[in-house]
């Protein structure tokens, strides 16, 4: 008896989304097979890797990260340097300074910073919110205005604030948005339905299905992404078909494993390597579950995950 393979292809596929300015845009999504199942059918577009920077600059206490950004002092220089990281497909800006629980920088100022970054970047840009629905509702429309013509993705349109963000970003300024829900297939679907009801067409939004680091309830995230993909493909559920972007960096670098000092935990070794491996493990697991793009902070993590993707696609 010989082995009879049973390829699992689907009639439906994940929607394609392109972002970035003309001539420098990237496209992702579009696949009609489970993640990396290239043996079932060719994969339309490889998953993307984003490199994350913050308006507060890199953590220069980490030696390799400090060396990578050495000499890059202004936000523009940092953005330009990040774009040189091998394997990076897009740049992700976190406007940390605008967080009302932190420095609470005015939205106009933060939007101006986003413009600076976009002008300095040769890669497509994604902007992450500050994780505060009121501030994001004010900030993201201003960012959308400042980034006219950049065709950027603005993350963190949530159920509480998606209307204003969607209208300003997509309808008025031609940007893309990320629909963010809290690790639940039904919430994700509901938000996508609401966004579609506003007349926002497929191809103009991506999903942010939540985040978590390896070891920290990651099974919820893995199963949610997996279930979303299976429903999108096998049930042709177009409310679950936008590509999924998972910002891994924030969680991966804020768990104990990546935070405690080597002085406190000598056997654990240098903090930087712990953070890198946490980013890599979490990102690889997200991609295996079905994320179409991941966002990482350390250039070493970006390089390794880009290599993993290249090997598999």
């Amino acid at each position, binding site marked *: *008896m*010989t*082995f*009879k*393979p*049973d390829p*699992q292809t689907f009639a439906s596929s994940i929607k394609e989304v392109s972002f970035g300015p003309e001539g420098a845009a990237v496209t992702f999504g579009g696949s009609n097979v489970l993640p*990396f*199942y*290239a*043996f079932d059918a060719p994969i339309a577009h490889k998953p993307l890797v984003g490199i994350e920077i913050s308006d507060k600059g890199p953590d220069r206490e980490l030696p390799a990260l400090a060396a990578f950004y050495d000499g890059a002092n202004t936000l523009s220089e940092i953005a330009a340097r990040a774009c040189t990281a091998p394997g990076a497909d897009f740049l992700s800006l976190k406007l940390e300074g605008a967080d009302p*629980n932190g420095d609470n920088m005015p939205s106009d100022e933060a939007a101006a910073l986003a413009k600076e970054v976009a002008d300095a970047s040769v890669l497509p840009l994604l902007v992450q919110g500050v*994780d505060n629905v009121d501030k994001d509702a004010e900030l993201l429309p201003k960012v959308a205005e400042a980034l006219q013509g950049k065709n950027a993705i603005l993350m963190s349109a949530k159920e509480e604030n998606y209307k204003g963000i969607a209208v300003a970003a997509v309808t008025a300024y031609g940007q893309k948005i990320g629909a963010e829900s809290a690790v639940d297939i039904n919430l994700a679907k509901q938000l996508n339905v609401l966004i579609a009801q506003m007349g926002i067409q497929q191809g103009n939004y991506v999903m942010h299905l939540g985040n978590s*680091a*390896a*070891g*920290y*309830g*990651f*099974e919820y995230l*893995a*199963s949610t992404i*997996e*279930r979303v993909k*299976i429903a999108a493909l096998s049930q042709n559920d177009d409310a679950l078909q936008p590509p999924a972007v998972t910002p891994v960096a924030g969680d991966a670098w*804020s*768990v*104990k*494993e990546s*935070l*405690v000092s080597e002085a406190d935990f000598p*056997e*654990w*070794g*240098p903090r930087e*390597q*712990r953070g*890198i*491996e*946490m980013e*890599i*493990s*979490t*990102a*690889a*697991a997200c*991609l*295996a*579950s079905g994320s179409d793009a991941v966002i990482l902070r350390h250039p*070493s*993590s970006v390089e*390794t*995950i880009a*290599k*993993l993707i290249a*090997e*598999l696609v």
Partner: protein
Amino acid sequence: MALKGIDIFKLTPKTNCKECGQPTCMAFGMKVAQGTAQIEQCPHMSEEALAKLGEATAPPMKSFKIGPADAELSLGGETVLFRHDKTFVSKTLFAVSADAAGTDAAIEAIKSVDYERIGERMSVEIVNLEYTGDSAAYTEAAKKAAASGKTVILSVSDEAAAKDALSAIKDSKPVLNGANPSNIAAFAALAKEFGVAIGVTADDIDTLYDAVQALEKEGLKDIIIDVGAASVKSAFANAVQIRRAAIKSGDHSFGYPSIVNIAKLAPGDASMQTALASLFILKYGSIVIMEGMSYAQALPLFGLRQNIFTDPQKPMTVETGIYPLNGATEDSICAVTVDFALTYFIVSGEIERSGVPVNLIIPDAGGYSVLTAWSAGKFSAGSIAAFIKESDIESKVKNRNLLIPGKVAVLKGELEENLPGWKIIVSPGEATSLVKFLKELQA
């Protein structure tokens, strides 16, 4: 394929003798189909019927154990492809690879990363020994590896060397990983002679399929399929297609656990090995062989494995008690939250990030999140106060300020009544606001 009750009924004697404990043969057939009765409970089944049923009711993936009697490891037995359908039962096992000369160093390195996380011991389970051409040295290395108490994989396709090593350590139930299409008969004989599990590989998935069937014909049951190291792409394709054939298509010849040799897929690149190990934890690696396992790799990988191989029905919990964070002393402020592991990790992580010394008190809350535990009556003013009294916290900590989760602010009044002398402080509703809140509280 699963049989329906009516199919099983057709194989019974149809005499309604009731000796099986069921009123009729039909009822018995239904019970067997549901899995609530065993076919053996009918004393009158013919041999032929039993064989037919055995074939049809066999689980899609074999399960068996490897390793020394006091530290046996389980492999296989999966019934689903996705963990949201049902729990994955046999967690991915980690092996560290060494040749004969590197055995001592590998054993030492494995021992140096060994810790506990949420009630589970985190340590590499297996030593993989690669044969490099010196049979005597290989047997000595096998003895050392077996003496370490870890399970041993003998990765050797030389028959004589395999036999020597097996003779030396057969009692510790190693895996003989070296069968391939050119040595099937000889290696099948070795596995039978020494009673060990056999690992088999081949250049492509079709030859691999034939090789597994050849081992089955020799009567071997404990088979492990090495997905090969030609490329990352082919190893992943094989791992997925083999498991999918077993579970989805019911192809028993691929219903065996897998070995993925990541050490060979990404030699010298530890970070790439972390990435690959994570991939194969999610997608069907039963044993993952790595070049090494540093703390930096172990912390995410063991955590990821613990997450993926959890029973969705049983929440992960942390031990109840008092956890002094950031060097908290008896004069530091107290905080209370539930014993659900995820909540504990998020809350303790934020407290650690704030740098403020806090005595974090964890009572038994049934392993639920804050609101769920509260609505189930497992995280109430009464239960918190009782825990503080029973575990004698009042004599261990002098500070009388107690932070409670913002989501159960309603407990404040009742807690103040139940805990005279304590000041109850309501924290923010979300853990992400804790850092700012604690810093301001301390100021």
